[in-house]
């Protein structure tokens, strides 16, 4: 513990720099998801974000000597980079690939909104001063920004695929938070959250199957049977 605390006083180590860079990269990819016009692009961006989080897990595993994280990284590559995107491609094979029209806002206002929300998350979480011992004070700020932007993504894109991807990105954001703030957190938590991903994919499959019989639409405008 003492050596960990000593790290705070020094200038940012290459480890801190690398993790922050990777975390910011995740945020940038998420901004890409906000304005993706094709389903395939959306899913590829998610796979790319998942690659980044897996690399980050390896970096943390190496730097902080938490060997279990290698296992998590391998599992998350298998599931989030390979399995989930493949299943999504397969489920959406027969549907219209064009989702540009699902934006509730114009691209510019959407990105501005996301920037505002991300900035809010960034500065609000900095006020809590939850720097992890080996990481700069921004450790929690970037994950919070990633999580908030994923909410924006789920809200402003009115197609079920983007909603699903938004939730998957949220999961990536929470993984990021657990890696940078609490690398010692029991791994089983992470793995349990991955199960949610799987169920989301299964229910997504049911939804596509049920709706495919009536229409080709992926728009959430069709999901208005239950209200009041």
């Amino acid at each position, binding site marked *: *513990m003492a050596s960990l605390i000593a790290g705070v006083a020094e200038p940012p180590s290459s480890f801190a720099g690398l993790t922050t860079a990777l975390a910011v990269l995740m945020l940038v990819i998420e901004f890409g998801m906000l304005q993706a016009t094709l389903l395939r692009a959306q899913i590829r961006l998610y796979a790319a974000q998942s690659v980044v989080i897996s690399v980050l897990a390896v970096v943390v595993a190496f730097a902080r000597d938490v060997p279990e994280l290698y296992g998590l990284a391998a599992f998350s590559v298998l599931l989030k980079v390979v399995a989930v995107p493949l299943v999504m491609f397969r489920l959406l094979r027969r549907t219209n690939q064009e989702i540009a029209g699902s934006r509730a806002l114009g691209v510019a206002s959407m990105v501005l909104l996301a920037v505002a929300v991300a900035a809010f998350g960034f500065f609000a979480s900095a006020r809590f001063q939850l720097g992890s011992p080996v990481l700069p004070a921004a450790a929690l700020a970037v994950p919070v920004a990633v999580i908030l932007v994923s*909410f924006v993504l789920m809200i402003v894109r009115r197609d079920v695929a983007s909603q699903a991807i938004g*939730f998957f990105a949220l*999961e990536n954001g929470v993984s990021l938070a657990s890696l940078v*703030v609490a690398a010692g957190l029991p791994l089983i*938590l992470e793995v349990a*959250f991955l199960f*949610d991903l799987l169920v989301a994919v299964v229910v997504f499959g049911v939804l596509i199957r049920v709706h495919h019989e*009536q229409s080709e639409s992926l728009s959430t405008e069709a999901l208005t049977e*239950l209200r009041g």
Partner: protein
Amino acid sequence: MPAVLLALTVLPLLGVVLSLLPGRWIAPAVSVTIGVACLGLTLTLVPAAAHGPVVLGFLRADAISVVFELGTAFLYATAAVYSVGYLRGEHERADFSRYSGLFWVGLNLFAWSMLCAPLMNGLALLWIAVEITTVVSALLVALDGTRGSAEAAWKYVLIASAGLGIALLATIVMDYAGASVLGPSFDLAFTPLLHAGTALPHPAVQLAFVLAVVGFGTKVGLFPVHTWLPDAHSEAPTPVSAMLSGALLAVSFYAVLRYYQIAATTLGSGFPRGVLLVFGMLSLLLAALYLVEQGNLKRLLAYSSVEHMGILAIGVSFGAPIAFTGVLLHVLAHAAAKSNAFFGAGVLVRAYGTKEIGRIRGGLDRLPWTAPLFLCAILALSAMPPFGLFRSEFQIVAGGLASARYVPAAAMVALVTLAFLGLSMATTRMLFVPRPGGPGAATAPRGEPSAWMVAPMVVGVLALLVLGLHPPDALAALIARGAAELGGAL
């Protein structure tokens, strides 16, 4: 006694495995047997937990856990019995054998995850158990395979999972807070957190508590993150709706209570109570407004669940010992009353072939058992004496007056009365207004679809009467102990 904890976490899993066996009668028989056995086992925990926590490895049952465990086990047993009758009505489905197979496996798995949650000794395991309840129940909501159920399951998965993501963030922040005081080997167990008390970093605990209320509150059905709840409750198979409403919401509230305990020890009770009061009041207000002029029977009961979860949050925010007693009793009485109401609604829906309140008329003439029992359940939900919810809500309001929260207490009484208006108008129309005459009106036979669907309701009303008239001494001791734990006793 610790062996009981192990049995409670293993038996339902055994039920899952046995439900996979071929044979039409194996799964129902196994589920009913194990459900009743779990209820019996939980009852044996009552006297022990009233004297202090029962611990076995990573399982731990104190008085608060046993109260929630009791409600869940009661739902498991009654819902299993009810399902036998419910599935008989699904026989005409083309895929019946697949449907019933999945149903029984899902029911046991769902009950297992909910029985595990209150027994977990630690915030990490608790989060995982709540997470598993989401995973299983989402699949159960989607089971019917209709457009409506697919839509409901999708909204449920997305909203509840996003909520659980926030709850995981709360767990992470609490882990950070604990580890900064208790060292890196800290594993999120309750007792060290409660003992660390004021030493925990305050901003982190504040953040964790608010995140937990929003995150787990999504599954509790607190405003404004309740939006999945009416959809999922109305589209799930009826026994699952009953379990969602009576047990799942309560189990999620249990998670909020654990964070409340830690936050109240660390920060003093002012901050957590304020947060819960705001969420509780808004939920109660929204639910009361939606209950008036609700057109769908199962949605009506779903909004009533939002109302009662709001009452629980308000009860905790009052903070007087008698309010805590009321909250814990309310959990049990709500489990019995809401499951009864859903069971009755399921029979009404089956008999009339619709969930539209406007098309259900003359229930008392047609259903000689269900209609009076449903009426009892609705009166109980409206906190009428002599049922258990009268006693619990009375205690909560008394607690509000005792801690000088006059305005919230008065607002609560007013909103509960408004909710009563909505519930009673709908019920009166369905049960007492005679069927309109016309061709086909006289052909509907008088009688119950299945005795299996009536028996659990009789048990539920008896339980409500016992809770309302004179709770057994052992239970009263358990609740008193639980209230003391909530008030800060270790």
